[in-house]
């Protein structure tokens, strides 16, 4: 029995008053931290790039070194994204729809590119395909160059961008369950028909999200690619490598212009990601 409701309310209000400081402090810390680490540096990139006006900015973007780097990065993404999408789909399907010995081991191996430092990933490739690596003598005698060439950069990109599609598709596949696929089979649909008409439409947003993240990583990777590329201007220099090189050569505006382009791509990806996340829900 509540004899006097106001009496009951009082301590509650007191508690609320004390509590109300906690969110304010936490929000303050978050804003300051993000400002120092994220917002100010990002804003600075844009400021530096446009410091000498838009003319200089666009001039920087028409330099052959830049164009070559941009097209190389594009090539890497255009090849790596479809490969990892198809692989990711297959792996996710195999891992969710089957129970087999070593399944959980495979699941953790797929996460390896997340946990390994990209530099180490690059080194692993050098140790395999480099001149003194395991496959080196054979590659050499057959005149195939992988390290310090495009194939090596592609391998590095494939490696670091591998887990995204798998990781995004596994939960949506699990959530969709196998029942709809079984239902399709009882209605006469072959496995291929079931995949295109039932499975794929069910996982499409999760899959697209995974593809976007794969693309972002493929375009932005620096560490692993830098180890295996040799960094030859206009030959094996991708966009992130170009940014670093230009900066080291004191071509600050050039570096910042390219950085702006990369940042712009990243922002675009995030916008798409946000849209997709809402669609998925």
């Amino acid at each position, binding site marked *: 029995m509540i004899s006097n409701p106001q009496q009951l309310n009082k301590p509650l209000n007191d508690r609320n008053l004390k509590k109300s400081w906690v969110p304010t402090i936490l929000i303050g810390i978050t804003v300051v931290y993000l400002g120092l680490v994220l917002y100010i540096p990002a804003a600075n990139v844009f400021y530096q790039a446009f410091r000498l006006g838009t003319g200089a900015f666009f001039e920087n973007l028409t330099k052959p070194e830049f164009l070559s780097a941009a097209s190389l990065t594009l090539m890497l993404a255009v090849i790596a994204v479809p490969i990892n999408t198809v692989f990711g789909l297959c792996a996710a399907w195999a891992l969710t729809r089957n129970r087999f010995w070593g399944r959980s081991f495979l699941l953790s191996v797929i996460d390896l590119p997340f946990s390994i430092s990209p530099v180490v990933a690059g080194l692993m490739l050098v140790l395999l395909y480099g001149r003194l690596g395991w496959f080196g003598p054979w590659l050499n005698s057959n005149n195939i160059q992988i390290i310090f060439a495009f194939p090596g950069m592609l391998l590095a990109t494939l490696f670091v961008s591998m887990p995204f599609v798998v990781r995004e598709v596994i939960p949506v596949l699990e959530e969709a369950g196998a029942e709809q696929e079984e239902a*399709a089979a009882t209605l006469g649909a072959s496995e291929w028909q079931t995949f295109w008409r039932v499975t794929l439409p*069910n996982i499409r947003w999760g899959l697209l999200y995974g593809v976007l993240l794969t693309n972002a990583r493929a375009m932005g990777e620096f560490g692993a690619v830098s180890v295996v590329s040799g960094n030859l201007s206009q030959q094996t220099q991708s966009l992130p490598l170009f940014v670093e090189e230009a900066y080291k050569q004191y071509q600050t505006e050039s570096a910042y212009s390219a950085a702006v382009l990369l940042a712009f791509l990243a922002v675009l990806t995030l916008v798409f990601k946000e849209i997709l996340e809402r669609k998925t829900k």
Partner: protein
Amino acid sequence: MVSSQQFTQRLFTPRFINKVIKFMGICVQDVSKRFGDFQALDRVSVDIESGSLVALLGPSGSGKSTLLRSIAGLESPDSGRISLMGEDATDRSVQDRKIGFVFQHYALFKHMTVRRNIAFGMEIRKMAASRVKARTEELLDLVQLTGMGDRYPSQLSGGQRQRVALARALAVEPKVLLLDEPFGALDARVRKDLRAWLRRLHDEVHVTTVFVTHDQEEAMEVSDRIVVMNKGKVEQIGTPAQVYDHPASAFVMSFIGPVNVLPTSSKIFQESGFDSAHPEMFLRPHDIEIALEAANNTVPARVARLIHLGWEIQAELELEDGQLMIANLTRDRYDRLQLEENQCVYVRPKEAKSFALNYNI
């Protein structure tokens, strides 16, 4: 030279062939299935007549769903044979068995409208577009969802979704319709409505239908015959009346309908002349007669508790030796006796059964 007859004899045992010819419905023979250490089906044989509606009834883990999925081809048995409509289907894929399957959680295609869901099987089987369209509308009428064709499954209630699932399964004119706990995910009222509706639908369409349930009332109400399963084995096959009145085992007796289990040595059986070589007797609550006066074959009991269930009264009775048992009496009888709690009454069993094997659920 091997004649074709010799060839078929090699494929099937003569007994199996005979059964196939006799029934032309669903014939399951000696089917076993193991999941790791768990024996889901243990040499199960069931014959289901063409055009009948049969319930697979049992507790969870009894193998009823595995049996249904094996008939559908969604599960492949380790041994045994399954024939559908007189044709051996053991090695046939799900797609080729021409069955309709309804899942407990509907398994509707979420990204398709109701109409596209129903048309799915017909489109896969390359039916002409005009026929698909006409038949889809027909089926929408049949499942009482006229005008809802453009909705998505998420916009329907549970009962409506299950009816869409049924229409989708019936669209391809299956030879057998298989339903896995079709009403399990629905609330009690919708469930009752849909049960009666399924029975009427079956009487209209007449497709051989098998459905899985753990609800004995549902099985009794809807089906022509009940297959009672326990621990991967068939305990009894019979009409609802047969399994209720003449249970083949202690398990069937206690799974279908309420039951009192009392030691055979109890005075209540000695006085009334029921005897058995087995240690336990099974007694239905409605087979207990209650009187206010002692007679030569009654024993005294105390009314420990009275529960009003509306149209009948459930009395908890305590015998002299402390044994508790439940008796049901009609409202009429209760009013005439004017029972009260803690009152002393005299009871006599009208019917009691005992079974050879020990039972456990």
